[in-house]
């Protein structure tokens, strides 16, 4: 170690890349995966579909990160951060797949950092303001139940990459749902105060749930090809799950999911998305030459 600069000396003892994993070329989430498109699969459509599923995960992940340093207890903070990290991982894989499928060669960062709000395809539920802890529980109860139902079916997708991403996600989503079910029961069947907070949160979230089940023409087309899932096909199953959980938590049985039309999937967003993306994208856009 050279004595003149201890930091340089310490750094020199390691061969940079190995220590920091910067600039290694190993950043691609799908490095080394066979990415050939199966015959009969429309790559452009598949790319947009991967953005829909990836953007739900990316935006909800960013929302959940707002709990870090601000959760009721450290244990819950770690749990919410873990859920956010799982969703971020799913987003990375899906967005990487999108860039291969559409032939553009864009990587996950190009999708995450260099698209404007009108090019994001997440549902409004994922971009809605964070709210209180009960709101996070209500949001994740619906979202993880929906995503688990969709990913379980996608594990049989005609696109083997999407199928593998979904099969991996199923284990993670099952944990997310398990976590929020436990909190739904604890809050709903807890004190009159916690019951009321959760009841309010479910009522606030409910108007945003219908969009999850509105079929985009592209989802219908990909479902017909055996690549994607028509979200309308999981409506009953998800409603049954959510009803069972809320009822067990002594909350009123929910209304049907509201009938809604496609909005976020077509890039039509609420005013809440732009500030969220501003925070997410700021560093990457200010330093476009940076690598990490």
């Amino acid at each position, binding site marked *: 170690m050279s004595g003149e600069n201890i930091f340089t000396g310490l750094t020199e003892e390691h061969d940079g890349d*190995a220590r920091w994993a910067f600039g290694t070329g190993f950043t691609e989430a799908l490095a080394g995966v066979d990415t050939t498109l199966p015959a009969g699969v429309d790559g452009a459509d598949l790319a947009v579909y991967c953005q829909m599923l990836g953007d739900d995960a990316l935006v909800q992940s960013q929302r959940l990160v707002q709990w870090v340093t601000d959760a009721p207890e450290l244990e819950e903070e770690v749990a919410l951060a873990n859920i956010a990290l799982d*969703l971020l991982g799913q987003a990375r894989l899906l967005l990487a797949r999108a860039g291969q499928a559409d032939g553009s060669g864009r990587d996950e960062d190009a999708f995450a950092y260099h698209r404007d709000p009108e090019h994001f395809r997440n549902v409004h539920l994922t971009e809605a303001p964070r709210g209180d802890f009960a709101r996070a529980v209500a949001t994740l109860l619906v979202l993880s139940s929906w995503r688990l139902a969709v990913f379980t079916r996608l594990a049989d997708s005609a696109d083997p990459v999407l199928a593998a991403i979904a099969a*991996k996600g199923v284990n993670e989503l099952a944990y997310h749902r398990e976590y929020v079910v436990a909190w739904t029961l604890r809050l709903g069947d807890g004190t009159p105060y916690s019951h009321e907070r959760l009841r309010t949160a479910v009522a606030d979230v409910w108007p945003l749930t219908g969009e999850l089940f509105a079929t985009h023409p592209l989802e219908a087309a990909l479902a017909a090809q055996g690549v994607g899932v028509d979200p309308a096909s999981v409506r009953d199953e998800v409603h049954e799950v959510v009803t069972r959980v809320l009822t067990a938590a002594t909350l009123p049985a929910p209304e049907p999911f509201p009938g809604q039309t496609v909005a976020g999937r077509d890039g039509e967003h609420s005013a809440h998305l732009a500030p969220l993306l501003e925070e997410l994208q700021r560093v990457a856009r200010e330093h476009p030459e940076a690598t990490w």
Partner: protein
Amino acid sequence: MVATRERLWEAAASVTDPELPMLTLADLGILREVAVQEDGTAAVWITPTYSGCPALTEMRVDVDRAVRAAGFDRVEVRTALSPAWTTDWITDEGRRKLTEHGISPPGEAPRRGRDRSRSP
């Protein structure tokens, strides 16, 4: 050729987990496959424990370095997504080491949906 493959496996299998350094990637079931291709490229497949695993990049770098140190000049570390990793992939040796270090080895992972976990 068989001996070369074994040398490759041993090199890759010697890499330890960044967070549980008493376990190797082989113990954890993260190392999935190795192959020496016709052009001499050493290919190594590893799988993430979960989709967002931030340690995967570090593992790739560590595997790359270990395999190069074993005499392979061309190395490709590839991601294997399927079948998805669960704690069932931890080997008996991995479980023994966990116990030895005061960590209870996980029980059988739940079978979920149409997840295609490793068949017994």
